[in-house]
């Protein structure tokens, strides 16, 4: 990492460098994940590190338990767009599973929204 960093000076700007990680890609292949989609590393698979960057591996470590896309972006301190691309790479290799959030209509279960309101009252 340190050696590579020397190739970039401040003039490269804060925008360019993160996308070096994605080899210039600015859009993920496939769908863009919701900020509250939960990502979980698939267990029991051998990870072939060839072609994976340290950031891919860091993501895999961070989502051993289901973790939201927003939390991953905050934890790894990389722009959301970069996280989306790295996650798409991991999905393409079947290394992560994604749990999409339920649309609000499905939250109508009165039990859930009552539980939310009650939970907030306990704050």
């Amino acid at each position, binding site marked *: 990492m340190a050696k590579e960093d020397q190739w970039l000076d401040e003039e490269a700007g804060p925008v360019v460098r993160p996308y070096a990680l994605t080899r210039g890609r600015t859009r993920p292949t496939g769908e863009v994940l919701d900020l509250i989609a939960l990502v979980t590393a698939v267990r029991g698979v051998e990870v072939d590190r060839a072609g994976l960057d340290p950031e891919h591996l860091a993501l895999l470590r961070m989502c051993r338990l289901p973790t*939201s896309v927003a939390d991953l972006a905050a934890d790894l301190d990389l722009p959301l767009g970069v996280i989306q691309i790295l996650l798409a790479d991991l999905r393409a290799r079947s290394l992560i599973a994604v749990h999409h959030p339920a649309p609000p209509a499905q939250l109508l279960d009165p039990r859930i929204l009552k539980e939310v309101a009650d939970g907030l009252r306990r704050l």
Partner: protein
Amino acid sequence: MAFGGSEAYGRGPGEAPVTIKILIAGGFGAGKTTLVGAVTEIRALRTEEPLSGPGVYVDNLDGVAQKATTTVAMDFGRITIRDNLVIYLFGTPGQERFWFMWDELASGALGAVVLADTRRLADCFPSVDFFERRRVPFAVAVNCFEGARRYRPEAVRSALDLDSDVPVVLCDARQRSSARDVLIALIEHARRELQQARAAGTNA
């Protein structure tokens, strides 16, 4: 509070985790970050957004030819109700030039809080318009800043031309209990809205 993004959701093996998205909107300086911070630890994520319009000239472009994007920081926070039930609060970027980000943000949101500052009430008009047009349930929270004249909720409702069912709550965004009450008002409003939508759907 543990906030490392790695708390277990997996208490019940068969139970699907539920994540709920709530947006905190309002004009620049209306207290969005304060409100999120009153109920949970604030986290920040970065997004990169295309530069367009007048914003281009605001950003420092020294040394970067044709810089086409800019970094926008976004605050969020997480409230764990229990295992497998977590609320995420996202502060929407306040500046007008980043509103195009809202569409993606608003998708799938259960509801929104629009923070209003009575000294600059017009600042929250665009947020109100946005959520009305997209039929995202929202509550208006009037942040009672010190030194600002107090208005009754009904006066604010009238000034904002809100539907009678939109909750208008006076709050102090710094106070946990006050911020919490705003969220509860929104959840209960969202539940009523969803029930109405469902009833309308079955009658149609």
